């Protein structure tokens, strides 16, 4: 469960006041809002990458407000993936487990499983240079899921993709949701991205979460 309780964020001129939302365990939440409305800032605050002025952030019932990003155990996919330039696809999928000093056999098994789920087996040995936008997003998604996070934060992962690729990604995200049961918060400004995926929708406007809709 992702629970944000009266969170206030300030960054320069930007101000997000008393934002609250709750995504039930295993649900797919979508946070909508115009460009510059503070969606990414809120996502970064949940991931522990941006400090909050006040409020609480609870993940899976645990108060993580003062925890480091690593301690929050969150899979995070930023806009355009932010892949590591010096790693190939396999190294991306293995990175989080290597940091955790997992057994090599376990890492190999996990990488192959993720590659199968995300349909990127042929890409495993390839450098990230030359991958298409959709392929990059799959690698970023695989990297975020590699260490079995309970929470997944997606920051406009589909905004730069063409229509057929976006449809493929919809199917893929649906498949991931079913297979992993991960609680997801997906930030976007495009309604058609999420109408098939969302269990609950939040709307962010003028620095406040002004609308909390029921599942579509």
């Amino acid at each position, binding site marked *: 469960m992702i629970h944000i309780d009266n969170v206030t964020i300030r960054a320069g001129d930007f101000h997000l006041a008393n934002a609250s939302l709750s995504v039930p365990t295993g649900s797919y939440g979508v946070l909508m809002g115009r460009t510059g409305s503070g969606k990414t800032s809120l996502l970064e605050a949940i991931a522990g990458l941006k400090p909050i002025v006040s409020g609480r952030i609870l993940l899976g019932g645990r108060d993580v407000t003062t925890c480091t990003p690593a301690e929050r155990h969150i899979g995070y996919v930023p806009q355009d993936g932010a892949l590591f330039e010096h790693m190939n696809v396999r190294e991306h999928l293995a990175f*989080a487990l290597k940091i955790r000093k997992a057994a090599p056999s376990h890492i190999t098994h996990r990488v192959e499983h993720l590659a199968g789920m995300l349909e990127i087996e042929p890409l495993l040995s390839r450098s990230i240079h030359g991958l298409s936008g959709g392929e990059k997003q799959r690698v970023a998604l695989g990297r975020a899921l590699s260490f079995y996070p309970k929470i997944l934060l997606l920051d406009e992962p589909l905004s730069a993709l063409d229509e057929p690729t976006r449809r493929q990604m919809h199917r893929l995200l649906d498949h991931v949701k079913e297979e992993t049961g991960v609680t997801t918060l997906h930030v976007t400004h495009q309604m058609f991205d999420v109408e098939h995926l969302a269990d609950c929708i939040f709307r962010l406007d003028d620095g406040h979460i002004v609308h909390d809709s029921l599942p579509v």
Partner: protein
Amino acid sequence: MSHIDVTLSDPPRRAGANKFFFLALGMIGGTYVLLILMLLGADVAYLISDRSSEEVVVDFSVDANRTRIQSGESPSSRFASYGLSFSSVEDDSSLTFLDSSHPGAFKEFGTPHEDFGGAGTGAGGRRGVQTENDRPLGNVLLLTKEDVPARGTIKLHWKQPVELDRVTILNAGQGATLRAFSSDGSLAIARELVPGPSSGVLSEQLGIKDISQLDIHLPGGGALADVAFFWNGRLRADWEAAHPFLATLAYNPITNALAKPEIQHSIYLSLVSCTITTILSLWTAVPLGYLLSRHRFFGRDFIDAVLDIPIVLPPLVVGLSLLILFQFFPATLREAVVYKVPAVILAQYAVACAFAVRTMRATFDQIDSRREMVALTLGCSRASAFINIVLPECRRGMLTAGTLAWARALGEFGPLLIFAGATRNKTEVLSTTVFLELSVGDLGAAVAVSMIMVVSAIIVLVLARLWGTRTLSI
């Protein structure tokens, strides 16, 4: 309401107008490119055309190997390394060295004349005459026969042609005749020198090129006090005439420079000091560049401005400031650093590091900080994100910063001159070598060392370009 019909047409364009525009841009900017190419071209042309000649003054105090000549010795092959040999040709006379300061029985060959407080006697060397014998000439080469001065001809023969500059003769009474022969055996010049009483000094300025032989005829006897000539610094081997290109490859100002021990030391010290400076610069530049690029903190703008000081400050001032700084340090530290090798490294580091920091900062600015943020969510600490993500990604920037620092350190001169000095075989690096060679008038060696530096700089530039960081805005 009136209706105005407006027809818009394309603005008139002359064919080729764009071409002229780009041509004009090219001509304005091209002058600078041309200047750079001309600079390099001039150096290369100078080296290729360099027929550097060095003057040799044979005054018989030492031989060609700098061994002291004793009175009474014969010339034999003492000057063979100049390709110069002496002989006498008439009346079984022979050649002997005589110390003119202590001429013994040969008073008329004493120098200076007794009028000037020396041992010489004879009317020709007296004060006020045209051929006055007014200074000590040291050893002279005397024409003798059975241990007494004799008339005859002293013959000088050069294996390879020289430019004959000056001949000085200690006359025994009847003047001298000079006959110089070109390399093809033809008579190049014949000159009658003023006859006069004995003990007179006859010095003749000649300035004639391509001379292989000089005959000095002394009808009343005499001695050769000195001979000065220009030659190309070494004897050519026989094969060189047949293979001039190979000879140029083997013997040119650059190989000549490389053969000098002091230049070898300077190259060694340059390589070592520049490499240490580069390592120190990167050691500083990576953390400082990262800090300035990623973190906002109090005093950041101040540090940023301070880092520009070594870049904009006149290099001499950097050296002077270092020298002043060390005046405040304990004497033991000062003595261990100033005018020693550590001063070379410190002076290079003081300037080169600023360039490395600028490059590293530009590198970190180009690396998307969200990658580190993602690494943090994947389980990394700040330090492990830096090691696992940032360092591998800034590898190219580090190579560029390193090469820039290296090149900058190689070219450093002003601070070195003041803070480390320019002592041969101690604190001499390539830039100071250029200065030192120029100061002793060896333009060929200076240009040769400059070319070594130019080639090093070009190698560094090409490597930096190959590593693909040409877009760094530094």
